[in-house]
């Protein structure tokens, strides 16, 4: 049986205790909301896209260490990046969580950085939803921003 240290890597607890990009943004920033009906976790993603770049992102809501740290790492990873790159990262992250959305195999050549630490979540299938919640919410926010 995988142990707690497989799941709760130090970097995860660090993002949980000191979440990056925490807060909210006023319109014209777009806002999307994700719920995990299983455990009641809630994530809010506030997003400003300017000239095809994720100009600013803030994370709100409350949830467990896995959902909160995943959101924190995600915000740090996509801020300042082109929208296309953010979408590719969503695809790659979900693939790492063994969620098959079809489409092409993601390009895994670039280093994942802190996000690598979440790889252990796959060994705890009930927690995959926690890790993926913010990513689905970001995808929705990107869709809204593109409208």
């Amino acid at each position, binding site marked *: *049986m995988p142990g707690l240290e497989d799941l709760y890597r130090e970097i995860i607890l660090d993002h949980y205790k000191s979440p990056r990009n925490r807060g909210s943004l006023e319109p014209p920033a777009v806002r999307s909301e994700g719920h995990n009906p299983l455990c*009641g976790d809630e994530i809010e993603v506030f997003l400003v896209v300017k000239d095809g770049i994720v100009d600013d992102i803030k994370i709100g809501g409350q949830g467990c260490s896995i959902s909160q740290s995943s959101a924190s790492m995600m915000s740090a990873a996509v801020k300042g990046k082109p929208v296309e790159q953010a979408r590719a990262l969503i695809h790659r992250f979900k693939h790492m969580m063994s969620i098959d959305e079809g489409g092409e195999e993601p390009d895994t050549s670039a280093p994942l950085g802190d996000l690598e630490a979440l790889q252990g979540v796959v060994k705890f299938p009930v927690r995959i939803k926690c890790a993926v919640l913010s990513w689905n919410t970001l995808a929705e926010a990107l869709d809204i921003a593109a409208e």
Partner: protein
Amino acid sequence: MSFDVQKVRADFPVLAELINGKPLVYLDSANTSQKPNAVIDAMTQFMQHGYAPTNRSAYQLAAEATDKFEGARAKVAAFINAPKVHEVLYTKNATEALNLIVRSWGSANLSAGDAVVLTHMEHHANIVPWQMLAAERGFTIRWVPLTSDGLLDLSNLSTLLDGAKAFSFTAMSNVLGTINPIKELCAAAHKAGAIAIVDACQAVPHMPTDVQAWDADFVTFSSHKMVGPSGIGILWGRESLLDAMPPFLGGGNMISDVKLEGFTCAELPAKFEAGTQPIIEAIGLGAAVDYLTAIGMDNVRAHEYDMTVLALNSLNDRFGSDITIHGSTDAALRGATISFAYRDVHPHDISQVLDQNNVCVRAGHHCAKPLMRILGSNATVRASFYLYNTPSDVTALCDALSEAGDFFTL
């Protein structure tokens, strides 16, 4: 009969299982209960030696299966002191039983301008069906609020019930453990001219049930929480109400005649039992009722009272201000379902650490999101005890919780 928890435990094979070499500490019975050999054997025996369709074929095996299937109904009726056996209806679960009431009684009786009264401590199963019908019919839903110690605030009850057609409430909260004053609430409903619907899902498994003493109009509960199998629940209703209600699901078994121009309904209970019923599950439920009856529901309640006192004291003694236990501190007013927050560690993370020690609890909103919002959180840890839990389970919970605290020191 005296109550011996070790003897009870020996009846439940799963409790002897080792998971990753460690014993199972099952504290999730408010979610669903474990099963004794008596239930497992009754269902297996029936499948091996007596399985056949019920209420339709004429051969001996089918007649005997029908006797057993209807015999289980009679056992349930006696268990809850129903005046008439045919007032006991098989459903898929308690959720379907509540939906049946709302769709059948509600559709026939509720329209714009009417009101139904619910409480802030209801399970989604006693909220959403009403909201679904209210969206169609335009009646209003009024809510009985809570006191700060997790009891129903009845100070305004007569105003809330004034002009209402139904008062539907839980007998025991699945989050707070609060045992509501069922008799008093039914009487208040009747005084206002409303019918009284009791969601007894958390009560029937844990304390004596007497639908006549309660003077309820409908009572719902599920088998899987009372050591019986999943897949079957019960709706008890007053004959006069059930007779006047339109059928819920249409199909085989629920008709007396079908012509191209239309159909006529069967008598109770078949009127509300369309299609092949959960036959094997009914046999299992009958065995569960026999099992609990032999132990005695007063004994079950007394044991759980002791477990509640012990768990409340142990958690408070060991964790002091680090733990916030929701609901009443008086074990006489509550069942052995204990929800709590521990420091600011998220319930999902706590349950993960507890799981490493095979301590099985529920972490989440417990299908009671309106209540969770009132408690000001989006999740709690819930440890729920049953007739097979022991003081050492309380110790295991506390030890694992300590470990979670150490791991997540923020």
